[in-house]
């Protein structure tokens, strides 16, 4: 597997800093599970965090603080015996990677899809942040991604099959990072359905109670 479309620097830095919202982080962490190259870049970003911590100008720790810690470690129970990890399970498994699998509560075969019409379907994924909307999408082979007019940022991570967007092909592990200025028409490659994780800016809250009431029905 050769990944061609990687995480942007700003996503990596925010994720390393711990300031990235959960929805975006889910796409980032799932790409990282599939991409050794970006894990190396993450290590660099975390190394920057370590260097900044190192470079913090401080006055020396007080003795009382160390005394409190010394008492605490004297009382800390013996370290639990590490359960041997054993050999890693057989590799080249091509289902949903963690952390995504736990978020959707199962693997591809067991998912309960909800139809979006025209053969496409989706599964909503719950997160505790208020700035993103997260879903798994299944696009029928050869068909365009439905309801594709978003007003903000959108991350699309391919998990199975592939899609083309203009000249670019996105296959398993590839991530597309689109903003509002990009008009694009991602289309699933013929021959196989495309399953991808789509994270977008949370939909705008409409002021009208009526629109708010039908929002869930329209799925916008």
């Amino acid at each position, binding site marked *: 597997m050769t990944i061609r479309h990687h995480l942007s620097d700003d996503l990596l830095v925010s994720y390393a800093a711990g300031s990235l919202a*959960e929805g975006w982080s889910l796409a980032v962490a799932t790409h990282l599970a599939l991409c*050794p190259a970006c894990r190396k870049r993450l290590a660099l970003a975390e190394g920057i965090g370590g260097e900044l*911590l190192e470079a913090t100008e401080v006055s020396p720790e007080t003795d009382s603080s160390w005394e409190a810690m010394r008492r605490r470690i004297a009382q800390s129970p013996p370290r639990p015996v590490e359960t041997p990890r054993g050999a890693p399970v057989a590799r080249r498994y091509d289902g949903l*990677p963690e952390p995504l699998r736990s978020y959707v509560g199962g693997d591809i075969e067991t998912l309960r899809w909800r139809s979006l019409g025209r053969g496409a379907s989706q599964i909503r994924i719950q997160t*505790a*942040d208020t700035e993103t909307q997260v879903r798994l999408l299944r696009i029928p082979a050869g068909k365009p991604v439905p309801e594709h007019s978003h007003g903000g940022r959108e991350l699309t991570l391919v998990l199975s099959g592939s899609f083309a967007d203009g000249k670019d092909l996105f296959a398993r592990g590839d991530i597309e990072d689109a903003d509002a200025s990009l008009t694009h028409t991602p289309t699933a490659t013929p021959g196989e359905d495309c399953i991808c994780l789509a994270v977008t800016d949370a939909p705008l809250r409409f002021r009208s109670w009526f629109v708010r009431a039908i929002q869930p029905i329209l799925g916008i």
Partner: protein
Amino acid sequence: MVEMRRPTENDAKPNMAALLVAVGARRDVDAFELLFRHFAPRVKAYMARLAGDSQAAEELMQETMIAVWNKADRFDPAKGAASTWIFTIARNLRVDAFRRDKRPEFDPNDPAFVPDDVAPADEIFEAQEVSVQLHQAMATLPDEQVALLKLAFFEDHTHSFIATSLNMPLGTVKSRLRLAFVKLRAALDRNGDVS
């Protein structure tokens, strides 16, 4: 407000990685005291960015350092510097303490995880080299880029928030962060492969 100084090559650095390995292997209290006296005030300053100068910052620092004591056997000097490892522990505790949402992580033991294809033999040497080079490369960054990195890493702010508070377009914040990141990566690339 805690002032920060730029890392310089003159910093006398005791071998923090070796101390951490001693704590992991033998629960070496003397080694841990040296680590504590070095990192505890830094971690406390990091926590104080969100907790204020309060008891809460002290408590979160103590939580971080007890986690360092308890998990030191999982520190792998082949993966990076001691300061990086301690930063990630402090970061995770800070996310738990101050954010409503989670920070999902990949799981290296997951069967779908795609492992690195690096020969393990070179890794310890490489990781130590990289951390020295990163330290040197940070000292060559312009002040504005270091200031932006500090904001990005130490305050729990999105890049859009940073842009608004600095009265700067979001694109400028992103491109400056990107410039800093690219420059650091290039400095490491020149001296070995970190792509």
